[in-house]
Each structure stands twice: as structure tokens, then as C-alpha cells.
């Protein structure tokens, strides 16, 4: 849409929303949130940007096709899932935890990476879907 009001507003919203999305992601283990909602928020941020600045610009920001995030994210989740099998001879998806918790996130462990994988996949797939539709509209 050709409206500079939306355009300039969204250029400020984008980084803030992305930040917020990571926040939602990381605190998920302790409070409401998590990879899925976080990913959705991030995706929405980009969608918003696409609405106001046009799809091509948003794609320019991303530097790669959002679809690429899907295998990357799934790979992250997958690796965090099978790492216990390979590293510790434990069953798949067993949580491996660092000794000490870190701030905000809390305990650091493979489930966190798993959640990050979820986050990436959600961004990737939501954006792929919406961008594809927008392009074909």
C-alpha cells in the first residue's frame, strides 16, 4: 500500500518486534511464550514490513528466501533431538543441560536449541506461506 505513514511506522516497528519475538522465545521455558509464538511474532513483523514496504524490499532485508529457514530450523531441532543419541548414548530427545543457569533464559540445554529450531521453522514456514500468497495475488 502506498502510504508513507505505515511505511515509516513499520520501519521502526520491525526491529522492536523482532526483539520482542526473541524475548518471547527465550523465556518460554519459564513463562508463557516459546518458540512457536515467538516465531509467529517475528513472522508477523516481516509480514507487516512486507505490507508497508512491498514484498521485494522485505525479501531484500532477509537476504535469503524465508523458506531456507525451514530446513535450517528443522535441522537445529533435529540435531538437538539426536545429539543425546550420538553424544551420550541416551534416547532421542533427552535433555542435556549445562551446569549453571544463565540469566533470562534460565537453564541452558538442548530443549532450548530445540525451541530455537521451532522458532526458525515457524518463521520460515509462516513467511513462505504468506509471501507466496502475496506474490500470487
Amino acid at each position, binding site marked *: 500500500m502506498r502510504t508513507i505513514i505505515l511505511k515509516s511506522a513499520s520501519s521502526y516497528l520491525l526491529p522492536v518486534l523482532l526483539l520482542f519475538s526473541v524475548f518471547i522465545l527465550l523465556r518460554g521455558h*519459564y*513463562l*508463557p511464550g516459546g518458540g*512457536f509464538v515467538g516465531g509467529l511474532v517475528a513472522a508477523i513483523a516481516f509480514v507487516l514490513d512486507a505490507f508497508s514496504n512491498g514484498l521485494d524490499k522485505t525479501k531484500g532485508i532477509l537476504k535469503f528466501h524465508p523458506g531456507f529457514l525451514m530446513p535450517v530450523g528443522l535441522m537445529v531441532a533435529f540435531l538437538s533431538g539426536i545429539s543425546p543419541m550420538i553424544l551420550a548414548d541416551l534416547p532421542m530427545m533427552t535433555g542435556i543441560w549445562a551446569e549453571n543457569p544463565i540469566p533470562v533464559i534460565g537453564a541452558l540445554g538442548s530443549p532450548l536449541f530445540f525451541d530455537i529450531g521451532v522458532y526458525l521453522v515457524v518463521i520460515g*514456514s509462516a513467511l513462505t*506461506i504468506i509471501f*507466496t*500468497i502475496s506474490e500470487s495475488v
Partner: protein
Amino acid sequence: MEIILAIITGVLYASGIYMILRRSMVKFILGIILLGNGVNLLIFTLGRITKGEPPIIDSAEKVLEGVYADPIPQALILTAIVISFGLQAFAIILVKRAYKVLKTDDLDQLNTTDEDS
């Protein structure tokens, strides 16, 4: 309040199915969304309702104690919601594509594959 939730669930099922049975593809999509919501509510209700006690452990505590909502149905519904989202997104696009290729929004026109060919 379970009665009300049960009734609303019933309404969601009924409206979902009713809409799915329409001929318009758009209504069909609305129907699957409504039905999906109905199913979620059913699981939620059958997991028993607890007011105002989310299953989150207090920052000072180590275990969840006292009255708390059952987290399992919530986790199930979350998974179901996400999956439904994927399915719905796909369905919406499918309908769009079907409309474009078949030039109709009428589900009743989609009956040639049953014919002998």
C-alpha cells in the same frame, strides 16, 4: 460453567459441520476452522477447567502445588492448533487454486473424478 462450555463446544461442532456441508468453498474453509476450534474446546473442557491458576511454577518454587490447571490438554491443544494452522493454510490455498483452475467456487461442481474416465 462446564455446561456453558459444553454447549458452546456443541455449537462449534454444529456450525463447523453445517458450514462444511455448504457448497461454497469459502464456507467450507470457515467450517473447518470452526470445527477445529470446537475440537480444541472439547479437549480443553474435558481436561477439566481451572480458573486463574496457570500451570506455571512460581519463580520462588520448584514444584507446581495446590490448585493448578492441567498442562497436558493445553500442550495437546497447542500442538493441535499449530497443525490445524498448517492444514488450514494449505486448505485456503488449495481452494484458491481450485477456484482458479476449475473456475468455480461450488463444491458440487467437483464431481468429475467420480465419473468413469
